């Protein structure tokens, strides 16, 4: 039972343009949603999170949008930079406990 889904395995974007990564979930009880970035041979690095009571959170070039009625969230990166090339994981938590991860989306930012 895959509770968190990232349906796009990969995304390619030109440097300077916007990257939009999407994530869908099934459990309406999730209370926090997080995005992590992962480089090869490293652990996931926390990027940004959003509480289920909010619909938007912004931190510099990164903005996360949450649409609870659609059970959908997205991460916007603007402007995209070559250093943003990595695997991005969407994750959700239940009562602040363990995270449930999506399968990840490989982002390639072309210069």
């Amino acid at each position, binding site marked *: 039972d895959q509770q968190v889904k990232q349906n796009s395995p990969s995304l390619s974007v030109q440097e300077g343009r916007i990257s939009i990564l999407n994530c869908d979930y099934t459990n309406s009880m999730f209370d926090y949603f997080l995005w992590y970035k992962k480089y090869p041979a490293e*652990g996931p690095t926390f990027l940004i*999170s959003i*509480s289920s009571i909010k619909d938007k959170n912004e931190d510099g070039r990164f903005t996360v949008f949450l649409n609870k009625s659609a059970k959908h969230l997205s991460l916007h990166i603007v402007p995209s930079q070559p250093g943003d090339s990595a695997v991005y*994981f969407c994750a959700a938590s239940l009562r*602040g406990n363990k995270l*449930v991860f999506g399968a990840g989306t490989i982002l390639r930012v072309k210069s």
Partner: protein
Amino acid sequence: GEEVAQTPKHLVRGEGQKAKLYCAPIKGHSYVFWYQQVLKNEFKFLISFQNENVFDETGMPKERFSAKCLPNSPCSLEIQATKLEDSAVYFCASSPGTDGSPLHFGNGTRLTVT
């Protein structure tokens, strides 16, 4: 420390041998989590601790896997009688609480069972 430290980075074991992985959480973090990532796929939750107490073990295989977090010692994940399918990267993470604080991950231990 300021980072989650996992040792060793790589571990190779013959099938049937024991494997033991270690994790030092960030100082001041009360919660420790173990995840398994097979073939760069999704992260599978194994177990979490609140200090030295098991908080959630719903992801732990019933047999062969055990974990501990003892005071003044790194946390450990032990696999008895390893199998080929145990080959994976095992990530440890820590967090200060369960209020939505993000998990901070180590760089993982790559276990290869031959």
